[in-house]
């Protein structure tokens, strides 16, 4: 399956989204990413039981932090999809890129992007 997704997305692999910390999300924004999203497994399907649910709460916390300092919380997001959903992966990448285009560049930014 060859699917295209926007080239502005930079992928950072983690063993499980449960490894994603609030600080990882904030550091990406601090270093100039216009948006950051976490792509976790479908809820209920985590190999480690609750990694994706933990990630969801941390994304929610990071959103709150951004809101408190006057940045759009939509710049951080959590998506759930299965490893078999390649088409959905590309669709999310386009969806999120579109959202960030609408928000415009981050006022923090040096132009770097992260996913």
């Amino acid at each position, binding site marked *: 399956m060859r699917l295209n997704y926007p080239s502005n997305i930079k992928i950072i692999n983690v063993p499980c989204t449960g490894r994603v*910390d609030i600080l990882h999300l904030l*550091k990406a924004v601090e270093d100039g990413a216009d948006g950051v999203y976490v792509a976790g497994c479908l809820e209920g399907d985590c190999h480690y039981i609750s990694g994706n649910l933990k990630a969801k709460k941390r994304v929610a916390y990071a959103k709150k*932090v951004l809101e*408190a*300092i006057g*940045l759009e919380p939509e710049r951080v997001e959590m998506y759930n999809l299965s490893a078999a959903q390649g088409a959905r992966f590309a669709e999310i990448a386009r969806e999120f890129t579109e959202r960030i285009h609408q928000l415009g560049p981050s006022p*923090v930014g040096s132009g770097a992007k992260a996913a």
Partner: protein
Amino acid sequence: MVVAESKPIEEILAMVADFDKILLTGCKGCVTVCNAGGQKEVGILASALKIARKKEGREIEIEEITLERQCDPEYIDQLEEPIAKNNYDAVLSMACSVGPQYIAKRYEDTLVYPCLNTTFIGGALEHGVWAEFCQACGSCGIHNFGALCPIARCAKSLLNGPCGGSAGGKCEISPETDCVWHLIYERMSRLGQLDKMANVVMFKDWTTSRDGGPRKIVREDLKQ
């Protein structure tokens, strides 16, 4: 332990509005355990402040350090080198409010700010939930109440409860709050001590509490 929570970021941002270089200090004691001011929270706050300031086009330099404890002078000494070497505009403390006072005492010419609201002496009910259990009255009498503290845990600090507001095990202040006097009744009944509840507990001598002014404990056997 001492339980605290972060001040709103907006409040902390306003504190540092005039500064370009600060030292942000955490504490590995109580506030690490209650996830308010340990190394991890120091990192998160530092990043949030940096993002906010980058956004305003006025970057702030933040150095992070987390001390063993901020309520012991020997650990506060660890700040000596960073403070002497760097010209910080201010030092921020993420310890309970003992910490910033110790830093202020030790470094007389340094501006010091608290980042937490120190809230109570308590413990965890579950991960991420903490509650108040003790008010440090200085003269513990919880053995009279089934080993539960009505001073800290009853909204009215009643020594002879419950009041008329106790309903279905909950306190009249909120359906979320247990009526500690209900718990005391249940526990004393289980222990076969209900007869003790008929005794009127006389008023408490509050001089051991804050009413006697700031408190101090001196242990001659330990003093140097």
